[in-house]
């Protein structure tokens, strides 16, 4: 460690004011504070309550994502060999290796493109590097189908970082969750690569060559939305042995992540809990009113037990990792309950009612991101009103 610090400090003069690479200081500083505690302190009235800072917060979320990532890699390989009919012969390592070859380039492209833009903006604006992209860069590959061409991934990342975040002034200012902005952009710009039943499993032996002609690898959610039934059991869906976006399939791994987030206090348990409540409420309403559906498929989907909606599709992933994003979620405590509940509520509603977009959770979270400031505004106003009343009562009594 000492050696590393010495090496880094050797470069200090190059980047400081008047140095050769003065313009690149944010870049240098970003890497330096990544390894060591920053040496500059606040000059004005800062009140430190905790040793935690933005970087540590972000890294905790990335750690919470690791189980889902590793399982995602394994599942990519597993689904691939399953489609080829070789699942029995392949070992755990084979599956993971195949998945890693597919997934790691996505991670690299996502981080590479996103961080390059962030660095560019930092140097242009002359402020320090924001750590916000650490989490976004990890989330984006996890919510994309495995066969998405890498350039599409790159374009989505560029859109999300520039339009979703940098135009608002960078980390902490965005109104929509940047990772979801990337996904929604890809979803509407390249729909054939983002939905349907061909994109979720890699069935090619070599590049561009599909051995299994006409193989249908719809997700359990897609099956239910289109036909009302699925071949996968609830246990499979919970464990994650189903086709889907890279990191979203396994509810179990997501629960581990949720546990880490709640334990460290980084993700709001209120939002997660309220989201589950909202989904159960909507699922329950659908169960009761299933007979009023407009088509037999929709009726079958509406009759899916409410608890099963929780393990279908990306719901768990969205509620745990996306809706709890502290920037774009509601920020008042009571607002979090309302926000979370509506996320779950709308997610199931869009999923069932809108045949075009079975993945309701993505659009539900974006929708509630839009309304989160409004919820906060009214919660704050209600607080002001209540306290005014209390103050008036006290003065009247005194």
């Amino acid at each position, binding site marked *: 460690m000492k050696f590393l610090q010495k090496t880094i400090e050797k470069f200090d003069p190059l980047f400081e004011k008047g140095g050769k690479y003065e313009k690149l200081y944010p870049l240098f500083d970003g890497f330096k504070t990544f390894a060591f505690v920053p040496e500059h302190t606040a000059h004005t009235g800062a009140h430190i309550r905790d040793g935690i800072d933005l970087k540590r917060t972000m890294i905790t979320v990335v750690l919470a994502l690791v189980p889902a990532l590793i399982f995602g890699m394994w599942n990519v390989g597993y689904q691939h060999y399953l489609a080829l009919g070789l699942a029995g012969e392949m070992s755990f390592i084979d599956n993971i290796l195949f998945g890693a070859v597919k997934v790691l380039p996505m991670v690299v492209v996502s981080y590479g493109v996103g961080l390059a833009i962030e660095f560019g903006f930092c140097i242009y*604006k002359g402020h320090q590097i924001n750590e916000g992209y650490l989490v976004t860069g990890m989330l984006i590959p996890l919510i994309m189908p495995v066969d998405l061409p890498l350039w599409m991934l790159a374009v989505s990342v560029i859109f999300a970082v520039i*339009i*979703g975040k*940098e*135009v*608002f*002034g*960078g980390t902490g*200012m965005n*109104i*929509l969750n940047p990772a979801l*902005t990337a996904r*929604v*952009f890809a979803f*509407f710009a390249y729909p054939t690569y983002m939905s349907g039943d061909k994109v979720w499993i890699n069935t090619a032996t070599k590049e561009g060559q599909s051995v299994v002609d006409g193989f249908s690898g719809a997700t359990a959610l897609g099956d239910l939305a289109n036909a009302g039934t699925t071949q996968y059991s609830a246990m499979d869906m919970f464990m994650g042995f189903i086709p889907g976006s890279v990191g979203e399939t396994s509810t179990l791994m997501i629960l581990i992540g949720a546990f880490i987030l709640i334990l460290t206090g980084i993700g709001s348990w209120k939002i997660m809990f309220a989201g589950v409540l909202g989904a159960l409420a909507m699922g329950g309403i659908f169960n009761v009113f299933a007979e009023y559906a*407009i088509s037999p498929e929709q009726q079958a989907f509406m009759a899916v037990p409410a608890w099963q909606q929780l393990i279908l599709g990306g719901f768990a992933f969205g509620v745990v990792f996306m809706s709890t994003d502290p920037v774009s979620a509601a920020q008042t405590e009571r607002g979090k309950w309302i926000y979370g509940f509506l996320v779950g509520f*709308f997610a199931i509603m*869009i999923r069932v*009612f*809108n*045949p*075009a*977009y079975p993945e*309701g959770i993505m*659009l*539900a979270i*974006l*929708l509630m*991101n*839009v*309304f989160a*400031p*409004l919820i*906060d*505004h009214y919660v704050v106003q209600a607080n002001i009103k209540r306290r005014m009343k209390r103050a008036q009562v006290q003065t009247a009594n005194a």
Partner: protein
Amino acid sequence: MQELINIFAKAVFVENMIFAYFLGMCSYLAVSQTVKTAVGLGAAVIFVLGITVPINFLLENYVLQEGALAWLGPQFETVNLSFLSFIMFIAVIASMVQLVEMIIEKFAPALYGALGIFLPLIAVNCSILGGALFMQERAYSNITQASVFGLGSGVGWFLAIVAIAAIREKIRYSNVPAPMRGLGITFVITGLMGIAFMSFMGIKL
């Protein structure tokens, strides 16, 4: 009853005036600085839409349409006044806006001051005329449906302007790049909100 609920939900979410048709953008962009004034203008638009659409519906069905004047006598059965529909709709809208203006000036002078020129300008707000023309085009079968559609469109517009006002209040502290400040960032936000509202597109009711 279910029909009415469907029309209402469709007008609010699926065919939102702002996010699906981008109608009524001028006052939407100009009066969305604070939630309070946005609520005022939004309520005024709900009121105007909720009144003008049914009135225009009556006008359309009993005066303007071909054969609509049949109730006057058999000799009027072939009269077709539909070339007058634009001007008649606008006249109705303008008079209703006058009414709203007088009511607000009397009962909420502060709001009247805050809304300024944009209150009389509701008369030329495209979402209001748009509401009347959509009503004509979609040929709602009775006046209840028309008024529910008008109210729904108004509520959708209200939601949109109040939501963006809250967002603009929030980003007041953001370090938005200088060229994007003001209207630029508002357009970007509107686009992003439009993407979020696309979740309802394609829902069949």
